[in-house]
């Protein structure tokens, strides 16, 4: 090959690449407005860069680098969150949809989420936001005061930080939740629980209820399915309970991944032995989603078996999700066995809880009922 020809080919290639739209090659940088940047909490300067101490990923970032959750960036030697006041999802949901069955039943909750997540679950139902950066999504302009205003406007009793991963928009959650508390509204965290202890302790002061997704009880599966670890999630569950946050746990049963009955038994045993027998546990039915499309949905029999195991192991409130018409949606008094809350869908058909106690036997029923 002659040199002239080589140069010609180089120029052609460079020209071709430069003509190719950035959107096609995916090389474009996320664009976020300056007002959505805020100095990140829990940052630390280290020899290798700025460390983000919010979650166990503990990203160490150099100038201009994005965190694993795609929400944090180092600019001028400081770590900033890019997810402040720019949620990409804002919806009205029944609180039962979170799912929270023992927390202010039959109320509406104003649900918000920004882009970004600190895990990479292959079955994520919200992958179009969780695996993105705020600059890639179409966002609303909702600063914390506007979040609170909308919550009141739509007659919601609480704000849910949900869909993607609220840990990654921590500062926005914290400010909105603080403001909401001042206005008498409740705050709900729907999270994967992948957060470090100090940030969690600070957040617990303004969070009233949480639903934590305990995705598996095997560290190996956790890593393969989500890219995370089990231990930090278990620590989160303990910390939330110890700090008086109302807690419910969800376990999504993914065929071949997390539907092993021995593993479910181990998980239930751990919950009971660690003082979570009063904590509601929701077994949720998997639907083929995102990268896990070549799987069947969880058979209802398999979920029912898990429900039986959990009850046998001593968990008092076990529910089944994503199966309309299931028998396992009512709340039963664990003392007298009578129906406390008869549910159909997201509605309560009959309520036999009076002042947090069973109407029939007067025993206390765990939860936040008003």
């Amino acid at each position, binding site marked *: *090959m002659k040199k002239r020809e080589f*140069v010609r080919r180089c120029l052609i290639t460079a020209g071709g690449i430069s003509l190719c739209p950035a959107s096609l090659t995916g090389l474009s940088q996320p664009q976020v407005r300056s007002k959505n940047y805020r100095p990140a909490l829990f940052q630390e300067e280290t020899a290798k860069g700025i460390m983000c101490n919010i979650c166990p990923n503990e990203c160490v970032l150099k100038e201009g680098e994005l965190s694993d959750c795609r929400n944090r960036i180092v600019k001028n030697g400081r770590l900033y969150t890019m997810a402040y006041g720019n949620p990409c999802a804002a919806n009205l949901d029944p609180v039962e949809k979170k799912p929270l069955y023992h927390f202010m039943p039959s109320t509406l909750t104003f649900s918000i989420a920004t882009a970004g997540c600190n895990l990479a679950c*292959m079955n994520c139902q919200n992958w179009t936001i969780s695996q993105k950066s705020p600059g890639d999504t179409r966002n609303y302009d909702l600063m914390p005061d506007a979040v609170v205003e909308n919550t009141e406007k739509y007659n919601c009793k609480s704000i849910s930080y949900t869909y993607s991963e609220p840990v990654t928009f921590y500062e926005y959650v914290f400010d909105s939740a603080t403001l909401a508390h001042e206005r008498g509204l409740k705050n709900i965290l729907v999270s994967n629980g992948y957060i470090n202890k100090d940030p969690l302790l600070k957040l617990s002061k303004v969070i009233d209820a949480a639903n934590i997704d305990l995705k598996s009880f095997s560290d190996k599966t956790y890593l393969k399915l989500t890219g995370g670890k089990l231990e930090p999630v278990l620590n989160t569950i303990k910390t939330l309970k110890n700090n008086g946050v109302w807690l419910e746990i969800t376990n999504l049963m993914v065929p071949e991944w997390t539907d092993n009955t021995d593993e479910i038994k181990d998980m239930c045993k751990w919950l009971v032995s660690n003082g979570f027998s009063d904590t509601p546990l929701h077994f949720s039915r998997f639907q083929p989603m995102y990268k896990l499309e*070549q799987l069947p*949905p969880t058979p209802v*029999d398999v979920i029912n078996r898990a429900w039986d195991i959990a009850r046998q192991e001593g968990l008092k409130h076990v529910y089944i999700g994503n199966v309309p018409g299931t028998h396992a949606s009512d709340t039963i008094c664990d003392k007298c066995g009578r129906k406390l809350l008869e549910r159909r869908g997201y*509605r309560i058909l009959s309520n036999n809880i009076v002042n947090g106690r069973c109407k029939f036997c007067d025993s206390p029923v765990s939860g936040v009922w008003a």
Partner: protein
Amino acid sequence: MYHVVTIGIVSLILYLLTLAGSRYGIISRRKHRIFWNIILLITFIVTAGAGIFLALQSNYKWNIEGVEKLLNWHVEFGTGMSFTALIHLSWHLQYYYNIFKKDQGRDEEALKVKSNNQLPCNPGLLMIMLGFLSGTIQVIFLREILNLSGGYEIIAGTVFAVWIIISAAGARLAGNNSNFNLNALAWGLPLSAVLSFTILILLSRLLTGEGVIPGYYITLLITTISLLPFCTISAFLFVKLSYFSATSRKITAGSSFATETAGSMISGILITLLAGSVIDNYQLVIASVLLYIIILGAFSGRQRFGIYSVAASLMLVAALITDPDTGIRNIILDSVKIAKSKDSQYGNIAVSNYGGEESIFYNHRLISYEQNIKQREENIHYAMLQHENPVDILLISGGLNNHLPELRKYKTIKSITYLERDPELLAMTSDIKDTVTEADINVISDDAYSFVKKTGGSYDVIISLLSEPENIVSSRFYSTEFFSNIKRILTEKGIFMLRAGGASSYLSKEQTGVLSSVYNTLKNDFTEILPIKGESVYLICSSGDLSVDIPGIADKRGIENSYVNRYYLSKDIIKYNSLQVNELTDSTISKNSLNRPVVVFYSQKHQMLKAGNGRLIFPVIAGLILLLPFFAGRRKSRTMFTSSLNLAGTEIMALILIQSTAGNIYQLAGLLIAITMAGLASGSYFDIFRNKRALQYTAPVLGLTAIFYAFISSPLLNMENVLLSTSLSLFIVFIPAVVAGSYYRSATLESKDSLSISSVYFADLCGAALGFLIIASVLVPLFGIKTTFLILAFINFASYITGQLSRIAGKVFK
């Protein structure tokens, strides 16, 4: 952040400057080289020094302040060194080129040594069998990769591109290599086919987790590694066999090409007749491989090979009477627990039994399952509740058994027409047989587009549960033409409902693009459109009023549901979500039509995001590589390249035209391939360009043909006579195929060596690959059929003009 791009650009500019300086005598050539040698030395010393220091620091945990800066320098200088090394490589390319280039004399000598006796059979027969096996393997491989990774155009284009790039490399390797044994290659070909599929199955298990759809780059990796054995050997064999035939039998390369193409044509016809209805995918692969061995053995005239033939015959019988596909499908879809697998003309149907629950997968995607209460209620009641008195119902796809109990809740119904394209799917869901005996149910096996176009029926509610518009085939069910026909067969205040993509808590920009295009298309025919966010975004359309109070209507009419009721749904939330979706729809996004299936573009972007964050670097780079013969090749290669690109493009657009006119492309696709192959075979066999001066007009002729096709494409799409429009659509590939075949013959006729043959073949393959890669996935969705034909015309004329200019320049500077 490292400065890879900046360093690259600066290096390139500096190099061009010193190069220009040396060319125009500003600096000497020696100084130019010394300068770059010094740059290479400095970058090497800094990179290596820093690298060694960092390695020691890591090993011995030296905690030195500012060490991270050293890493920075190591990488930055390493980048600089890499670019400088590339420049050096360009100076010494000839050296590496010579390593692989063999002496032509040796090549010919080697061929002379190998007598005809060393071939397993007659070279013509071997060429036919090569074409036959390649044709079969290509179709089945494509089907399987699409099953594995999702059936959208970029994947299909990528598979074709990879196939052709490896084949081109194999052809090039053959051109440069004299160390070969035709007999071993001929017998190695069926083994390589088995090896390719074995690798495909193993890698699909090894590189993906349970139930995981591989991302784009994993698919690319699986495709490339799997195809390596078969494509390399088949291309190598083709080039060497062509050369052998040309030198020992005086058979032109064009005639060899024609013979190979005839083999592919036979496979195309056989696949059309057998695949899906009589024989399953893997069964077909096994049968084709064994048939190849049987024929080679039978015609070898040698006892040893005859034994191969007998053994293969026995194995063929065993393969045909057993069901290897269910076993193989169970290996691929281990987590699904396949109870039964069947390939139809439209795709693979697999019935799984996991945990005692039956699910049906179509092309490896779940289409129905037991206890799917929520979805089946949403599929039926959102639409049905909008009509006060539904009498005649048309349900398009989605499964009858699932939905029948929901439809039965409406006592006013007098007839239900269920439309399902795939008869095998109807047969596999066995209990449908019971329902068809019910008087008011009419089950029709037909393509929805054709049915809606020709039916004279009238319906109160039409529910389309067809797959989302993720490829050109499914996009026609979301086109202006389809919706107009739907409107025509609806009663005055009839309801039409379809699903327009997934509905999570957030609709991505790409999903919004799909939704907006479908929404704007529907606006053509319907005054009212109500979006409902459920498992999917449901678009309910009518010319009458629509209500968001779905739970209220269900209550009022006494329709008892488990999910679509006031316990799960509220009027206010439905209204809030509908308004949100309405606000998201972008009125500037184009309507989707048969001529311009723009929805596919957005849908593919969404699929690509799912498959790998939307980075389309490979298709872009592959496109640039494939363009090399156009920019860097000789005139002969350039014209071959554009002829093949033109043919591939015409073939794809003919497919789109056929599916739009006849509807059922699957049976006709084989016929289209056969016509293309017939055109190529006749073009390359008969000496059409007897007058060699006519050769130079190949590109303008193709350009004018493309312009003609551009102007007849719209009338073809709208022609009333389906038979005529389909026949014409099928025929449009014939002329480009004949011209491409003839050009191949002429371009290789005067070739004195296998390297020349392989150059033309390389250009031919690159053109075809580029055509498959960009036309279906980018050009047609973005610009439409008519404009794409005009783009093809432009490329042909550009090829002609650049050829003429270089000829003139050659004369001037001689």
